[in-house]
């Protein structure tokens, strides 16, 4: 990649980025000076009159966090310590629970449990709120603090209290921390089809995809009919990896463009020649947990008609966060600096990627899901998307009386075999 800075497009904390050094801007306008004076006045009142003395550092940390996190759900502040932790975290593995989380009004909310982790095994779900850790409520603490409380030595125990919309009352879940490996690409053969699941986008994802395709070709041989690329519940990660994955499957054309307010935030990424799947049919699976970098891949393959996208409309996180370090010792901002657009020029922000064929898994109408449908457009303070007349097509549903382990996958496999299923109630 020819950019100095990698940018993070994870829907959540935990997928880190490299660092962009940016010269500080000076030259506020009169209006902003008045606002800074107002801040000083409030700061001064708290220093003098609050019931106990509070350190300036604490006041300013909370102020910066309040300023930044009020902008949108994905921007936040890391103080010097949190910033250091982040640098360590990007270097390797850590003990944790395997939850992708975000914060809403002071509560920690689960975006998705990561496959094959303690959180996934314990049955935690998208949309759950974490109300407490080890019996202590965590409302109001910063997301980074909450994450660091959930992390710890592998093998140690932690109890989290879950508020599940629609559940009668909060309940406790006891978990044992495990090494959360940076998620590996998973794949297996489904008859004459290759199934590849990308759980996230990290430094190893593109490499993992290439390995999976090579191995599936070898296993299945020349009769290989096509691939299923499963991006369901993939919350995103590194932009560069999303670009590389798209590039692997495309022969040419645009992948994604980013647009911000500074020249450095405007970029266009194009595919180079070469499709590692030799033009075989691809079905991409998406759902409401498909966010950010995943949506770039789905959007690029859909716009190019390289793949048929099936499942449910994706999350709609079409913004890019960049880690912007402040002066040494001052921590860093994780700030939304750009929106991204699919090759046909659509913003994903708040709208998500609509599938070519809507296929329901069957669990979308749980009371919990209905009450708290998880998507960018539902997040308080989300960036506005483009106006668009949404044509909601009723999704294909599993026929009644038949049991499916994974209806969307079954549908995808049938589609690749050229015999799409009929919907249970479509007429």
């Amino acid at each position: 990649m020819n950019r100095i800075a990698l940018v993070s497009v994870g829907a959540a904390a935990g997928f880190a980025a490299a660092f962009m050094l940016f010269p500080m801007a000076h030259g506020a306008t009169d209006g902003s000076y008045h606002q800074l004076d107002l801040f000083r006045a409030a700061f001064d009142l708290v220093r003098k009159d609050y019931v106990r003395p509070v350190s300036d550092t604490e006041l300013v940390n909370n102020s910066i966090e309040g300023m930044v996190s009020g902008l949108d759900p994905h921007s936040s502040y890391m103080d010097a310590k949190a910033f250091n932790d982040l640098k360590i975290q990007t270097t390797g593995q850590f003990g944790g629970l395997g939850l992708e989380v975000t914060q809403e009004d002071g509560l920690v909310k689960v975006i998705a449990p990561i496959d094959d982790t303690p959180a996934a095994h314990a049955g935690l779900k998208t949309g759950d709120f974490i109300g407490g850790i080890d019996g202590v409520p965590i409302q109001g603490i910063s997301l980074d603090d909450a994450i660091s409380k959930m992390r710890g030595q592998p093998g140690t125990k932690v109890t989290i209290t879950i508020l599940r919309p629609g559940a009668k009352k909060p309940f406790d879940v006891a978990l044992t921390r495990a090494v959360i490996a940076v998620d590996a690409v998973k794949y297996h053969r489904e008859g004459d089809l290759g199934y590849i699941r990308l759980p996230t986008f990290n430094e190893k994802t593109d490499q993992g995809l290439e390995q999976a395709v090579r191995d599936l070709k070898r296993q299945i041989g020349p009769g290989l009919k096509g691939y299923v690329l499963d991006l369901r519940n993939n919350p995103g990660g590194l932009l560069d990896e999303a670009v590389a994955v798209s590039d692997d499957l495309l022969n040419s054309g645009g992948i994604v463009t980013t647009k911000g307010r500074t020249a450095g935030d405007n970029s266009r990424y194009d595919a180079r020649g070469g499709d590692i799947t030799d033009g075989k049919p691809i079905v991409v699976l998406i759902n409401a947990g498909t966010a950010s970098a995943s949506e770039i891949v789905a959007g690029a393959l859909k716009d190019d008609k390289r793949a048929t996208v099936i499942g449910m409309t994706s999350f709609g996180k079409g913004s890019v966060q960049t880690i912007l370090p402040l002066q040494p010792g001052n921590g860093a901002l994780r700030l939304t600096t750009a929106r991204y657009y699919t090759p046909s020029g659509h913003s994903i922000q708040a709208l998500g990627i609509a599938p070519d064929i809507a296929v329901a898994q069957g669990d979308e109408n749980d009371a919990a899901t209905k009450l708290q449908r998880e998507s960018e457009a539902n997040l308080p303070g989300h960036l506005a998307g483009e106006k668009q007349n949404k044509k909601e097509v009723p999704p294909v549903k599993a026929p009644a009386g038949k049991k499916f382990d994974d209806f969307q996958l079954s549908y995808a496999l049938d589609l690749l075999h050229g015999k799409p299923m009929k919907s249970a109630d479509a007429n």
Partner: protein
Amino acid sequence: MRTEMALKRVALISIGMGAGFCAGLALLPIAYGDDLAGSQKALQRFGEAYNVVRERYVEQPEDKTMIEGAINGMMSNLDPHSSYFDPKAFADITVKTEGQYGGVGLVISAETGVVKVVQPIDDTPGSRAGIKKDDIISAIDGVTMMGKNLDQVQQKLRGLAGSKVTLTITRAGVKDPFDVKIVRAAIQVESVKYKREGDVGYIRIPAFNEQTVAGVEHAIRDLKAQIGPGIKGYIVDLRDDGGGVLEGAIGVSDAFLDGGEVVSTRGRRPQDTERYDAKAGDIAEGRPVVVLVNGGTASASEIVAGALQDHKRAIIMGTTSFGKGSVQTITPLDNGEEGALHMTTARYFTPSGRSIQATGIVPDIAVASNKDDPDESILFNETESILPHHLLPDDNKPPLAQTAPIKPDPAKTYDDFQLSYAVGYLDGKTKSRAVAATKTTGAGGN
């Protein structure tokens, strides 16, 4: 009445647990950076972040929004009761103190991210619509309330009388959340209720407002007339009383005390350190008093319980109170043009110097309720001490020992076990067990 005492202060202070009992305005001069030398570095860090956001954020941010976010972040992390009122919220409060505002008549809590009905107020749209205690308000007008703080929830509930609001209710035992449409109305402030229980007078104070002292005085006069000279004592029920105006708490304590300190406040500003005393005269003429408290007894209620306990004027029964012993002052910024700071500026101390903050009032005789649900998660048994960033008591006193509560007889059914126990205690019908309990826990004031 201690009205003159309160008016002497520039700031009236808000001591509601958060049930919407509000405050007057402290008109304090805003001090501009005269002693800020030491904090220049911290402010520079803030300025640096401010500039980076203005330069790089995906959209041109509004300076005003950024600074409101910053002040909000600074305030709300101080403790669970401090917050920033933006100009609109501040204007709403001003309107509310003038009594023009409508509401739904629900006392709610939102301390752990779940908005829960503490009590529907009798004869209000909320109770008429069938909203029940412990219902969870999961959404208002279709907007989720999970994780919202009390200020945000109250702003959504309030509106002009006659306007409509839809609450989505999650109720234990009901499978799916359901919607309840409510027309807002002017909410009559809750009044003191009383009744005769044999030879004992029962007085219930649901909240402390401007009418509470007069209500208690009237109740006692009437109970004396009803029961006559054989009156054995009084029960003052402060259970689930979330607080209210300070003058009400002082006046009610004063009514039962013959003199001495009621409560004192201590803060960093000189005007936040103050002591309130009772005048001579006990309208209950020294008859025994039992005060009932529970985990919903907060703030102004805890002042009354603490004062009567320390002076040994009353036996406190029930379960440990909430522990909200802090005072918030509202300071407008730029004359309110830029909103106001709602900030904790002092702690309350009982006459013996105990801080109510986080510790609460420990009953002299612990008596369990027959309504307690042992399965409830800690998240629903809210007390100040489990709130994140709660203020510490700062009185260097060990918390009072808590004894095992007297429990209802599982073989019997009770309408209100704590009340039955209190009545039995006052009319002498409760036997040895109560006496034993008094011996072991009666030294509550020390």
